[in-house]
């Protein structure tokens, strides 16, 4: 919209028309407006990076330069790796944006995508072959990329690990049919030991001092009279502690580089007195953190950004476990309510900028990952609300301020997951509602008592730790504690579950990738009854889950030696204490899960087969197999029968709901037979991100009437789009038949509500009543899209005008214009539920 048109209309006018994005633009401060518009959008659009966004070659060159220099050094790998990381932090370009109060970015310049060449050669090849992101002049850049890539062939993490994997499993996984991602310790979802580093008790310098002391003591011990196996192990510990120390020292140095730049800007370039003061404040902040614990909200937020920036220099992190109101809230309270050194508006400016700093973060990812996470770089689902370790309401003024800031800056990433519990105050619920009503698609709501019980049930986390949980990725709770936190969750334990039912029909042969991936469960036409059919389903489920889990277990076991993380270890109490890399499975309690993409297709397919083939005997299995083999072509009437006349999940129909529960219980039972390297369980977690579109051309025809190429359901335990015909309460009741503590790790539920129905106080009361039902039925998750069809269709026709419309995709939010047409259509097709 033209600037004049925005200026001429009032906030009220925009709000009445539910054009929340223009209203936000008018309401936010000039600083936030500048910084919000300054963001280079990094989320891929249709799998491709946006015009102008370029791969950052500087870091790749710096890392390769240091790797070459150290190649023949006698240092153990963990120390070489720490030195490479330090070299990057010491020499990368840094920048400070006009009006910014917070600094730090993973790339060298605002429009760059950070590229870590040491993770995987196959990723490096994608960098070379992605012409849209190669910086100008292309020929020179390609020469640089070739040089970097040539060095890392055979030396990258994945290259080192691949030959040690089970080759059969690896080939099945890399076929792209059943899993998503690669088993890589520096390429997944990494939590942090926030209870160690974010409680204000210590920061980098204190940890360095402790490490120095440990090294001195160990050195003394190794040289004392005597020699035991403990002495031998001590050498490895010393190396690990040394490596940790190197990374923390580099972390302090890069912060001081920011301090120095801010000082130079203030002294030599800035003429505006107010801005000069701000720059001096940035300098003071970066001198203080991360070396020493923060004292103010600005220092606390800056400390967090540095921690995350450095962690994302050490590894590719696809998620952002965080609990900002819990760890920064005390500083907010001190500055705003006690010392009154910040006004609420100033604090909201800082929080809005904090969201913006996270929104810009990007690391180069392979195309399959970009397709599965359309419009965003990773799932930054920050956890807010909930309870403290003693079970008291942990919501604070910053919980509210964060939601208010989010409505002003309207970024699609990070989003919030709100931990609902019975003690949450009405004023907080109203803020959540306002975010939803204004079309953010977040916070999603999580049932805290259920998830705390679930976290204890599956892994045995003690209650005081379970109560501290934050999202490891989109949905899975993890305590950010000494033995609870998960240093790496590898994304390849993500099962494309529609293949389970597909392989029952094909005897485990995958017709799309032309290889035997599943188990040989026999000719489906020979099955005499539904029990035989279900038995085959169970076997295929176990086969697919096992292939993925074996690879992760193998990678996690190899990781501490082959692909260590000294920086993350330096922030982990367990590693400081033990001298072992934080990836060491024996140090962790275990918090593994299998993400179950495309799950509900199994349920509707099983119900259709049971009803139409085995019970009504309307079709023989041979007829069904034949129709599916032909992708239903020539069998449209029969296909519609399987779509319309078989029971569908989400309608409070026990026939199909019982099948859902039976499948989940079978998976839950098997989850306890599968064990992670820490010795703990592997429960499943149904959700999809945009996998339903990514897999559309990979999953063949199914007995629920789906054809190859059709979008899959939007995921989790959400009913198929348009197939939930009995209203919102029936959906909740179906989902309520699942035991959300013992049947799985978490269960995503998408719901669409009408914006006009949510207007005013009446809308709030309707939603609150609906949420009471949700809570009473003990569902662990729910998320909402509150954007009407007309707005979404208008955005399809005129995307320029609707750049800022946000939708909830599945587990994350994205700007509607940044997702593919197929995903857009899939969201529009979701049933709009009428409340009341």
């Amino acid at each position, binding site marked *: 919209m033209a600037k004049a048109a925005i200026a001429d209309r009032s906030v009220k006018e925009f709000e009445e028309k539910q054009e929340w994005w223009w209203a936000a633009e008018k309401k936010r401060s000039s600083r936030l407006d500048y910084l919000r518009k300054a963001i280079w959008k990094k989320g891929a659009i249709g799998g491709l990076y946006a015009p102008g966004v370029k791969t950052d070659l500087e870091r790749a060159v710096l890392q390769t330069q240091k790797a070459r220099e150290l190649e023949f050094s006698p240092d153990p790998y963990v120390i070489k790796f720490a030195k490479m990381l330090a070299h990057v932090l010491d020499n990368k370009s840094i920048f*400070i944006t006009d009006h910014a109060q917070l600094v730090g970015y993973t790339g060298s310049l605002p*429009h760059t995508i950070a590229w870590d060449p040491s993770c995987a050669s196959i990723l490096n090849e994608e960098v070379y072959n992605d012409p849209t992101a190669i910086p100008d002049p292309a020929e020179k850049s390609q020469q640089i990329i070739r040089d970097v890539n040539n060095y890392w062939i055979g030396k990258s993490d994945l290259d080192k690990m691949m030959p040690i994997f089970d080759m059969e499993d690896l080939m099945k996984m890399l076929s792209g049919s059943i899993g998503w991602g690669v088993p890589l310790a520096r390429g997944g979802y990494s939590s942090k030991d926030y209870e160690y580093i974010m409680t204000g008790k210590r920061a980098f310098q204190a940890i360095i001092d402790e490490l120095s002391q440990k090294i001195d003591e160990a050195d003394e011990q190794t040289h004392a009279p005597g020699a035991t196996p403990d002495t031998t192990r001590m050498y490895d510990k010393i190396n690990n502690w040394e490596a940790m120390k190197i990374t923390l020292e580099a972390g302090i140095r890069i912060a001081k580089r920011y301090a120095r730049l801010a000082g130079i800007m203030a002294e030599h370039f800035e003429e505006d007195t107010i801005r000069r003061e701000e720059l001096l404040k940035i300098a003071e902040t970066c001198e203080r953190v991360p070396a020493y614990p923060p004292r103010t909200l600005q220092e606390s937020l800056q400390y967090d950004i540095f921690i995350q920036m450095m962690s994302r220099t050490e590894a590719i992190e696809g998620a952002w476990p965080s609990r900002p109101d819990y760890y920064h809230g005390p500083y907010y309270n001190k500055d705003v309510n006690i010392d009154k050194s910040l006004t609420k508006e100033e604090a909201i400016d800082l929080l809005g900028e904090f969201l913006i700093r996270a929104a810009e973060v990007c690391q180069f990812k392979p195309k399959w990952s970009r397709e599965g996470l359309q419009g965003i770089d990773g799932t930054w689902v920050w956890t807010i609300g909930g309870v403290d370790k003693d079970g008291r309401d942990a919501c604070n003024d910053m919980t509210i301020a964060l939601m208010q800031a989010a409505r002003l800056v309207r970024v699609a990433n990070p989003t919030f997951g709100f931990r609902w519990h019975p003690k949450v105050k009405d004023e907080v619920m109203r803020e959540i509602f306002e975010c939803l009503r204004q079309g953010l698609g977040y916070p999603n709501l999580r049932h805290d008592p259920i998830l705390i019980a679930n976290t204890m049930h599956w892994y045995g986390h003690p209650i005081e730790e379970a109560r501290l949980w934050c999202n490891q990725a989109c949905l899975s709770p993890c305590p950010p504690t000494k033995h609870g936190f998960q240093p790496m969750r590898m994304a390849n334990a993500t099962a494309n579950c529609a293949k389970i039912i597909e392989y029952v029909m094909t005897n485990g042969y995958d017709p799309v990738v032309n290889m035997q991936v599943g188990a040989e469960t026999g000719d489906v036409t020979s099955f005499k009854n539904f029990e035989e059919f279900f038995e085959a389903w169970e076997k295929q489920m176990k086969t697919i889950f096992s292939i993925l889990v074996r690879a992760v277990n193998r990678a996690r076991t190899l990781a501490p030696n082959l692909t260590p993380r000294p920086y993350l270890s330096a922030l982990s109490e367990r590693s400081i204490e033990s001298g072992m890399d934080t990836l060491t499975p024996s140090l962790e309690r275990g918090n593994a899960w299998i993400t179950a993409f495309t799950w509900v297709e199994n349920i509707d397919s099983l119900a259709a087969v049971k009803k139409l083939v085995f019970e009504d005997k309307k079709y023989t299995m041979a007829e069904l197999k034949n129709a599916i083999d032909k992708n239903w072509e020539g069998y449209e009437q029969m296909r519609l029968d399987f779509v319309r006349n078989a029971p569908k999940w989400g309608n409070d129909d026990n026939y199909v709901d019982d099948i859902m529960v039976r499948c989940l219980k079978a998976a839950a039972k098997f989850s306890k037979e599968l064990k992670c390297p820490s010795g703990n369980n592997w429960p499943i977690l149904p959700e999809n991100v945009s996998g339903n579109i990514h897999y559309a051309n990979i999953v063949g025809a199914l007995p629920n009437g789906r054809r190859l190429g059709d979008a899959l359901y939007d995921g989790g335990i959400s009913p198929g789009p348009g197939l939930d015909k009995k209203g919102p309460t029936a959906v909740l009741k179906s989902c309520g038949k699942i035991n959300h503590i013992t049947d799985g790790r978490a269960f995503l539920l998408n719901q669409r509500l009408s914006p006009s129905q949510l207007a005013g106080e009446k809308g709030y009361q309707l939603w609150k009543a609906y949420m009471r039902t949700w809570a009473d039925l003990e569902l662990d998750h729910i998320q909402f899209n509150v954007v009407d069809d007309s707005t979404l269709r208008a955005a399809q026709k005129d995307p320029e005008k609707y750049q800022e419309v946000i939708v909830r995709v599945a587990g994350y939010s994205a700007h509607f214009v940044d997702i593919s047409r197929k995903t857009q259509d899939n969201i529009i097709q979701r049933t709009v539920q009428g409340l009341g």
Partner: protein
Amino acid sequence: MTTCENCKRFFPLEDNPEKGDCVQRVVDPRQAYYKSKPVNAGDDAVSCSSFQKK
């Protein structure tokens, strides 16, 4: 020889003037910022397009 130390954009470290930062103003299509990159005072700046004589 033209070196970084002869450039207006070079800011030497107080405790080690042989090293310093090249600080530049950049205005890109979305934002304006100052960027800084570590350099040595004696680095060859002959082919540097950003060089500005002190």
